[in-house]
C-alpha cells in the first residue's frame, strides 16, 4: 500500500525516476531504466491537452545503451483504464521482449502493472521505441533509443565525431489518436484539405484540352481515388525532439567539429524531406545499421525509418529543415556554433511544391504519366525589380511566384508612394536569404506584409504542384539519397540466394479507410509462416496509391536495391512507394512471432498488419512459394494462407 502510494506520488509529481545502475566490473554491464507511463497535460500548440508522458516527459526520454549491455527496462503503466506496451523498434531480441500484445505470449501491460523487459543488446545504432497499443504512439509514447558501439569505439574512421545528437522528428495533433481514427472512419477525406476543385479541372481543360483531361480523370474517377492524397491526416505540428519550430531545438558545435545527427522519424503518419541548407550531409547509417558513406544534400525519410548523417559545419548557423511530403509544414531545428552569439528566431522556409499523384502511382494502369517535374523554375537569382516605380502598388500580388532559389533578389530601388496591400506572403522560395528590401523607399509601407518572411508560425503556402509521389522538387544539381545508394558498411554474412518467396500485397480501400495485406485485415488474416533458417525473398507489391513504410519486427531485411548481395543494406522499415514493388531478402533466423505492418499508425489500426511466424514448420505448411530455378518464374501471389505446393 505504502509502495503504491509513494509510486503514485512519484508519478504525480512527474519526477523522472530514471536510475542508472551500471556496473563495469561484471562480464556484461547491466543497464537499467525505469519508465513510468502516465497521463499528463502537454502544451505544444498553445492549447493544453491530455496526452501520454513517460517519466513526466513528452515525448519519452532518450535511452542509451552500449552494444553487449544487458538491458533491464522496468515499465510501469499508470494509465487509468487502458493497457499499454512498449516495442523496441529495430532491436534484435527474444520475441516476448518485443512488446507487441498478442505476439509471443506478451499481453501488454495492464493498468498499474509493471513489465520488466530484459534482453541482451546485440547491435549498435540509432533506434527508437514506442507503444504498440492502439494509438498511444501518436499520443506521446515514443522516444529515441541509441546504442553505442562497445566502449563507444567508432565502427570506422569516418564515424569518429565530436558531437552526437538525436534529431527525432514527430507529428503532434491537437486531436487524440482515438478521435483521428474515428474521424478517418467517418470520412476518409476528413483531413484532406488539398483536394482538387472544379477550378483545377478547368485549368487542366484549358491546358491539356478536353480529351486529355477526360482520359486523365476517368481513371481516377473509376478507381475512386484522389490524386492529391499524399498523407491521410493533416493538421499536424511537426516537432524536432519534441520541440516546435518556435521552440527551436538547437544542437551546438565548435568550429571544425564533426557532428553526428541521428535522424529518427518517430511520427505517426508523416514522411519528411530533410535538408540542411548550405550543409552537405554524409549518410553513414540507415535504420541503425552502418552503411558506406554517401554524400547527399537531402533525403526522404519514411515513417519509422532512421538515418544517421555526419556533418561538418563551417559557418556559425544552420537550420535543419524537415518538410512533410504533403508540404503542410516543417519540423525545424538549428545547429549553432556555441562560440558565437545565438540568434533566436528561426526562419520559416517556403514550402516546396506539393506532388500530385500520377497514373504511375496508381498501379499497373498508367504508363503515360506526364512528367512536369522540370517545370519549376530552378534559379531566379538576379531577378531585378530595381526599376519598378509605381505610385500605387495596391494589390500587387507575388503569390504565384515559384522559385527554388531567389537569392539575390533585389528590390532595392523600388520607389513607391503607396504600397498598401503589397503581399509577398505567398512567395514560394526555398531560400530567400539575401533578399534585400532594405533600400526600398516608401512613404507608406504600413500594410506591406513581410511578416511571414521571418515569422516562424505560418508556412508559406505553395499552390504549385509537381507530378509523381517520388518528386521531392530537389533543386537541380543537388543530390537526394536513393535507396540504391545504400551499401552495407560490413559485408553481409548471408549472401545465399532466396529459396522461397513471400508475397506481401499492400492494398486498401481509401474511401472506407480499410487497409490490407494480401487482401485481408489483420483481424481476418491467417499468420504468415516461414521456415526457420530459410533464406526468403519478401516481395512487397503495392497495389494502392499511397506509400507504405513496411516494418518487420525482430529481424533485419536486406534491401534488394541493386547492390550485390554482399553489400545490401539492412533495413527494418522499407518504404514501398505507390504502385511499386520492392523486394528484400530475409534470413529467418529468429524464432518467434514477429509483427509485419505498415508503420503509418492508422493504416496499421485499420488492418495493415500481420504476424510472421518463424518456426520449424514442415514443408507445405509455409506461406512462402519456392523460387523456381531457371524456369519461368511464376508470379503467382501468395494469399497469406497455406499453400501446399508439393
Amino acid at each position, binding site marked *: 500500500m505504502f509502495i503504491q502510494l509513494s509510486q503514485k506520488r512519484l508519478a504525480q509529481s512527474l519526477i523522472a525516476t530514471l536510475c542508472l545502475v551500471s556496473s563495469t566490473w561484471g562480464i556484461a554491464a547491466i543497464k537499467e531504466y525505469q519508465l513510468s507511463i502516465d497521463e499528463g497535460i502537454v502544451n505544444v500548440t498553445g492549447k493544453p491537452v*491530455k496526452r501520454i508522458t513517460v517519466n513526466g516527459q513528452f515525448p519519452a526520454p532518450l535511452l542509451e545503451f552500449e552494444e553487449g549491455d544487458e538491458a533491464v527496462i522496468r515499465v510501469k503503466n499508470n494509465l*487509468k*483504464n487502458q493497457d499499454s506496451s512498449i516495442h523496441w523498434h529495430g532491436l534484435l531480441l527474444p*520475441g*516476448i521482449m518485443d512488446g*507487441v*500484445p*498478442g*505476439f*509471443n*505470449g*506478451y*499481453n*501488454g501491460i495492464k493498468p498499474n502493472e509493471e513489465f520488466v523487459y530484459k534482453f541482451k543488446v546485440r547491435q549498435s545504432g540509432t533506434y527508437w521505441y514506442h507503444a504498440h*497499443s*492502439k494509438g498511444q504512439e501518436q499520443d506521446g509514447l515514443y522516444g529515441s533509443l541509441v546504442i553505442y558501439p562497445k566502449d563507444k569505439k567508432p565502427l570506422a574512421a569516418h564515424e569518429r565525431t565530436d558531437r552526437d545528437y538525436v534529431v527525432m522528428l514527430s507529428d503532434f495533433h491537437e486531436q487524440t489518436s482515438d478521435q483521428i481514427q*474515428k*474521424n478517418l*472512419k*467517418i*470520412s476518409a477525406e*476528413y483531413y*484532406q*484539405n*488539398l*483536394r*482538387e*476543385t*472544379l*477550378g483545377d479541372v478547368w485549368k487542366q481543360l484549358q491546358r491539356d484540352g478536353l480529351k486529355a483531361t477526360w482520359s486523365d480523370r476517368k481513371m481516377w*474517377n*473509376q478507381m*475512386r481515388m484522389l490524386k492529391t492524397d499524399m498523407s491521410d491526416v493533416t493538421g499536424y505540428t511537426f516537432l524536432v525532439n519534441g520541440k516546435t519550430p518556435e521552440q527551436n531545438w538547437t544542437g551546438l558545435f565548435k568550429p571544425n567539429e564533426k557532428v553526428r545527427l541521428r535522424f529518427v522519424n518517430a511520427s505517426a503518419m508523416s514522411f519528411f524531406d530533410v535538408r540542411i541548407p548550405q550543409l552537405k550531409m554524409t549518410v553513414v547509417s540507415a535504420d541503425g545499421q552502418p552503411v558506406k558513406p554517401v554524400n547527399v544534400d537531402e533525403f526522404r525519410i519514411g515513417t519509422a525509418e532512421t538515418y544517421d548523417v555526419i556533418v561538418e559545419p563551417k559557418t556559425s548557423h544552420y537550420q535543419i529543415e524537415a518538410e512533410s511530403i504533403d508540404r503542410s509544414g516543417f519540423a525545424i531545428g538549428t545547429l549553432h556554433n556555441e562560440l558565437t552569439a545565438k540568434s533566436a528566431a528561426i526562419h520559416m522556409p517556403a514550402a516546396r511544391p506539393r506532388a500530385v499523384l500520377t497514373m504511375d502511382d496508381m498501379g499497373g494502369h498508367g504508363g503515360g504519366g506526364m512528367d512536369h517535374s522540370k517545370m519549376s523554375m530552378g534559379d531566379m537569382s538576379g531577378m531585378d525589380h530595381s526599376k519598378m516605380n509605381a505610385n500605387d502598388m495596391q494589390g500587387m500580388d507575388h503569390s504565384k511566384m515559384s522559385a527554388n532559389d531567389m537569392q539575390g533578389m533585389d528590390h532595392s530601388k523600388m520607389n513607391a508612394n503607396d504600397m498598401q496591400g503589397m503581399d509577398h506572403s505567398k512567395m514560394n522560395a526555398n531560400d530567400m536569404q539575401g533578399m534585400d528590401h532594405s533600400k526600398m523607399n516608401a512613404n507608406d509601407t504600413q500594410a506591406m506584409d513581410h511578416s511571414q518572411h521571418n515569422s516562424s508560425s505560418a508556412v508559406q503556402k505553395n499552390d504549385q504542384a509537381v507530378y509523381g509521389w517520388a518528386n521531392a522538387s530537389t533543386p537541380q544539381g543537388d543530390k537526394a539519397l536513393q535507396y540504391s545508394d545504400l551499401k552495407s558498411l560490413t559485408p553481409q554474412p548471408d549472401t545465399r540466394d532466396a529459396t522461397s518467396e513471400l508475397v506481401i500485397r499492400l492494398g486498401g*480501400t481509401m*474511401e*472506407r479507410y*480499410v487497409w490490407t495485406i494480401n487482401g485481408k*485485415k*489483420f*483481424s*481476418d*488474416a*491467417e*499468420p504468415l*509462416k516461414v521456415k526457420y533458417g530459410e533464406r526468403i525473398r519478401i516481395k512487397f507489391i503495392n497495389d494502392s496509391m499511397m506509400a507504405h513504410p513496411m516494418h518487420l519486427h525482430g529481424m533485419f531485411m536486406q534491401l534488394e536495391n541493386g547492390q550485390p548481395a554482399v553489400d545490401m543494406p539492412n533495413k527494418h522499415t522499407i518504404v514501398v512507394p505507390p504502385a511499386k514493388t520492392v523486394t528484400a531478402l530475409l534470413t529467418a533466423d529468429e*524464432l*518467434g*512471432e514477429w509483427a509485419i*505492418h505498415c508503420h503509418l499508425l492508422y493504416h*496499421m*489500426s*485499420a*488492418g*495493415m*498488419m500481420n504476424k510472421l*511466424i518463424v*518456426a*520449424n*514448420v514442415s514443408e507445405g*505448411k509455409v506461406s512462402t512459394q519456392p523460387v523456381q530455378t531457371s524456369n519461368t518464374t511464376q508470379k503467382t501471389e501468395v494469399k497469406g494462407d497455406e499453400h501446399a505446393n508439393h
Partner: protein
Amino acid sequence: MQIINLFSKSVLASSLLMLSGMALAHEGHQMQSDASIATESTVVTDHSSMDHSKMNQLDEQSNAVDHTQHQALTTTMGEESIASHSTHDHRKEHGAQVYQRVTIDNAWMLDEDGKGTLDSSLELRIGTDENKLFIKGSSSKAESDKIEYDLSALYSRNIADFWDVQAGVRYSDNPERTTDQERVDAALGLHGLAQYFFETDAYLYFGQDSRVAFSLETERDLLLTQKLILKPYLDLNVVFSDDSRYAQKTGLNSIKTGLETRYEITKKVMPYVSVAYAYSKGNKETAWQTATDSESGWLYGAGLRFRF
C-alpha cells in the same frame, strides 16, 4: 398484421433507444468523461452480440482455422501463446473495431407557391467494416399538415470494396390518412460508392397489398473550394404495383433532382442551400381517395447538417 406491427414497433423503439444512447455516449466522449466509455462499451457489446447472430460461417471457420494453427505454433513457442489467445484477441484492434457515424439533417424547403416543408432526416451507422446496422429516419412536416415520417432498420453487409448489401424493415406513418396510417415494408438494397464518386443507395421495398417499389438516391460532390462544395443529387421512386387503399400510380412515381451548395464550417457542421426540381405522378383512384394529377415544380430552401 398486428403482430408484425408490434414487432416492427419494438424494433424501432429499441433502435431509437440505442440511438439516443449513442448520442449521449458521443457527447460524453467529447467531454472526455469516463462515463462515456462505459456507455459506449455497453452499446458495443450489444452490437457484437447482434453481429454474431448474423455472421455466417465464414467467420467461425476462420476462427477455427486460426486456432488450429495456433496450437501448431505452440509446439515451438511454448505454453504462453495459449494463454495469450484465450484472454484477448489483440488482432481485433487491427481491423475489427466498431465505429459509428451519425448524420442529422434539417432543411426548410419552399415550393413555388411559397408553401414550406420541414424535412428532417437522421442516419446512424454502427458496426465493423463488414457488418453494420443502419438506422435511417426521415420526417416531413408541411405547413398545415401533420408530420409524416418513416424509420428503417437495416443490416448492412459489406460485399465488395465499395459496396454493402442491406436488408431490413421500413416503418412509415402518415397521420393524414383515415386508415392504414402505419405501414411496414421489407427493404432490400445496395449502398455504396459507384464509379465517378457517386454515393448511391438503391432499395426495393415490398409491403402489404402487393406494394412493390424501387427507390434510388445518388449524389456527388463537386468542390468549388475545400469547404464550399456543390452537390448535385437525384432521388427517384418507381412503383411497380400498389393495391393498397392509398395506392400511388405505378411507373416512375416521383423524381427530384437538385443542386445543393454546402459550406463545411467543419466536417461536423455543414449549412447548405438547395434548389431542386420535383415531379410526382400522383395517386390512383380508390375507394379511399380520389385520383390526383401529376405535379411538378421548383423547390428551394436551406438546411443544416451535422455529422459526427
